[in-house]
């Protein structure tokens, strides 16, 4: 079994003098600072020789005191071992530039684009350094830099200018004020790049081709995003995705809140998975503080997170069914009714329906109420019966099968290369589940199966979700049996949390895939940087290549089966 020490020793012998400093953190994490000119070689070596084939993401940190930017590349493996390599590259603050990893890992594309538009770090060799989340007027402002002066911006609406276009639509633009121009919070000159519309129009080659817009508001999308497909007849030639319509700048906001105030913001990252988001954030901060939640609190967290997984999968499947055909509209309504019962169980503990803010650093907010066990067991029994019924209702339906089988097939190799995780990856015959792979909380003591399917098509992705509901029920039943009595908060946690300077990365299995939080502390009561590495961000990036060559009618079946959440993509 490979450990972080093995990897570090191998790196030091293969690249003498390249690793400037290194340490092996808890939970098989390898932290290393690499010389900027050799980062691509080091990553290539790790990918080819130590099966670090899962590019998890990149984080850009603005170290304004040292006059540096730090880019941390996060690499992991799809099941070969559990080591996470966090490789840091430092670059000067004026004229920052690092080498791009897009040549090695296909999915590095979006992560690097995001760092470029937010921090202004240039990535040498990146094929398309265009803005991803920001509107055009904010590009060149670099809002995530620490010296960005446009934060907080209270008076945006008062400055909006209304004008009527030639087509008769009202358009709004928000011009910069003189003070902003003087302070440098708006761009002096927009970086030169073609806009989204220009880029997609460049791809039109023949007379028979046209672009079909789906969105930003469209019946199929779970939130506003723009999916443009270039069609030739009935076939999709190329798909273009524009996200960022609800970009809220959560990571910037988290930097300006204390650690405790950050918990409600992480709820709103993805409202279907607010408990796991809390868990990931609190877990990362717990590692900074060096504390661990008591056993009872960990069980409570598992119970609630698994209940939350059930409701998320029910709603995800339900939404998907409305998209593909109205013939299966009834299961949608039934599933929503069942979901209400699950929500009632969660609500009896947390007091909220979707945004819970329940997990605390070193524990949970409150204990389980009386009668929770009986109520939950009844609900789980009902959910099992109903889920069996749904599987019979539509998974065995011949029309549904014809519509879904062989549509949007993602081969195991492609799924790993595109960087998807969660149910879409497990549907492509890869048993990659954080609960089993990198067990957090007390999952290592619990018995459950990692559901996989061989087909990798849209039908398999839905099946995986439905089967995971059974596994979640089984996990909750075990927890309810095993849960000990005891405290629900670790002792000696101050009200005002000031972790030691350092970094922590903590990943959990979200309902949709791998969710990780990267928190950097400088010893004050506010984090320097919080990076949320979400699973849906990775799915969405993988969507355009998946849509190439399919029929227009199948676009909905494929995009829907991914169970996306725009709020988490945009953050």
């Amino acid at each position, binding site marked *: 079994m490979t450990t972080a020490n093995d990897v570090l020793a191998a790196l030091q012998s293969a690249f003498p003098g390249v690793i400037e400093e290194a340490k092996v953190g808890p939970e098989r994490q390898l932290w290393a600072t690499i010389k900027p000119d050799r980062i691509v070689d080091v990553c290539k070596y790790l990918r080819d020789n130590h099966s670090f084939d899962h590019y998890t993401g990149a984080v850009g940190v603005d170290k304004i005191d040292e006059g540096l930017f730090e880019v941390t590349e996060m690499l992991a493996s799809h099941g070969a071992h559990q080591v996470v390599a966090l490789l840091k590259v430092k670059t000067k603050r004026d004229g920052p530039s690092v080498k791009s990893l897009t040549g090695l890992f296909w999915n590095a594309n979006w992560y690097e684009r995001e760092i470029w538009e937010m921090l202004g770090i240039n990535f040498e060799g990146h094929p398309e350094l265009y803005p991803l989340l*920001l*509107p055009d*007027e*904010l590009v060149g402002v670099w*809002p995530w830099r620490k010296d*960005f002066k*446009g*934060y*907080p*911006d*209270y008076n*945006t*609406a*008062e400055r*909006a200018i209304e004008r009527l276009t030639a087509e008769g*639509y*009202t*358009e*709004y633009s*928000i011009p910069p004020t003189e003070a902003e121009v003087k302070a440098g919070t708006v761009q002096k000159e927009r970086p030169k790049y073609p806009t989204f519309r220009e880029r997609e129009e460049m791809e039109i080659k023949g007379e028979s081709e046209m672009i079909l817009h789906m969105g*930003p*508001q469209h*019946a199929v999308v*779970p*939130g*506003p995003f723009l999916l443009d497909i270039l069609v030739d007849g009935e076939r999709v030639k190329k798909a273009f995705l524009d996200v*960022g*319509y*609800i*970009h*809220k*700048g*959560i990571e*910037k*906001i988290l930097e*300006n809140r204390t650690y405790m105030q950050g918990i*409600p*913001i992480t709820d*709103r990252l993805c*409202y*279907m998975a607010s408990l796991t988001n809390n868990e990931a954030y609190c877990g990362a901060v717990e590692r900074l503080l060096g504390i661990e939640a008591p056993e009872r609190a960990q069980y409570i967290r598992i119970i609630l997170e698994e209940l939350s997984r059930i409701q998320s999968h029910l*709603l995800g499947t339900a*939404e998907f069914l409305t998209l593909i055909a109205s013939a299966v509209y009834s299961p*949608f*309504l039934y599933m*929503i*009714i069942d*979901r*209400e019962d699950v929500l009632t169980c969660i609500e009896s503990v947390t007091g909220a*329906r*979707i*945004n819970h803010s329940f997990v605390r650093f070193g524990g949970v907010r409150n204990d389980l109420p009386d009668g929770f066990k009986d109520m939950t067991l009844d609900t789980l029994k009902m959910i099992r019966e109903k889920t069996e019924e749904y599987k019979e209702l539509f998974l065995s339906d011949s029309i549904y099968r014809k519509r879904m089988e062989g549509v949007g097939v993602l081969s195991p190799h492609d799924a790993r290369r595109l960087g998807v995780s969660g149910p879409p990856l497990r549907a492509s015959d890869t048993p990659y589940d954080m609960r089993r792979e990198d067990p957090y909380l007390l999952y290592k003591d619990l018995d459950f199966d990692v559901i996989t399917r061989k087909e990798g098509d849209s039908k398999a992705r839905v099946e995986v979700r439905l089967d995971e509901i059974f596994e979640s029920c089984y996990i909750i039943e075990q927890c309810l049996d095993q849960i000990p009595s005891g405290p629900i908060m670790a002792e000696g946690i101050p009200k005002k949390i000031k972790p030691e300077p350092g970094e922590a990365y903590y990943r959990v299995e979200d309902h949709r895939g791998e969710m990780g939080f990267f928190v950097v502390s400088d010893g004050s009561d506010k984090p320097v940087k919080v990076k949320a590495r979400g699973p849906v961000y990775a799915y969405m990036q993988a969507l355009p290549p998946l849509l190439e060559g399919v029929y227009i009618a199948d676009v909905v079946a494929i995009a829907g089966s991914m169970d996306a959440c725009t*709020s988490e993509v945009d953050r």
Partner: protein
Amino acid sequence: MGISDVIPLPVAVDKELEKWTIWGRPLTDVWFTTTEKIHEIIEMGPIKNVLNWGRKNSLWFLMQPMGCCGVEMLVFGCPHYDCDRFGIFPRATPRQVDVMIISGYITRKYLPAIKNLWEEIPEPKWVMAIGECAISGGPFYDSYNIINDTSKFFPIDVFVPGCPPRPEKFIEGFRELQEKIKRREDKRGY
């Protein structure tokens, strides 16, 4: 408008007709009226109450989830809360709806798109701001990309606070809108 504008008549006949009256009003006024005139008559009379009674009992809303409130909006349209009993029904396209719900944060990038949606909705139409984000920016009030004051851009009739409001609160908001329509106190004055 004179009769001779429509039917070619000798001038003498036209002059004669203009003298005729019906119920004390010039005949030409009653025969040849315009949509605006019908509107004026409806606006004044009690017939408007009948129209508004119909409108308030079939408020179809646009299914346009934007944030956390979008999930509650979805649930609001489903059997457990059963908005259908008030004549409220979710639709997926702006061409078929009466009410637009702003169910989340409006960003600089999304503002033009949502404005287009609003303009695509046929009259009569109403707009509701649901959730803290749509009212004041909510937890993201200090973001660099959020429009805090939605009411600058949309004639919002009902604000429903909450983060997110429960589906019961949605029902309360719609009942409030129905009352406003009934009392003719809505922003656009239907």
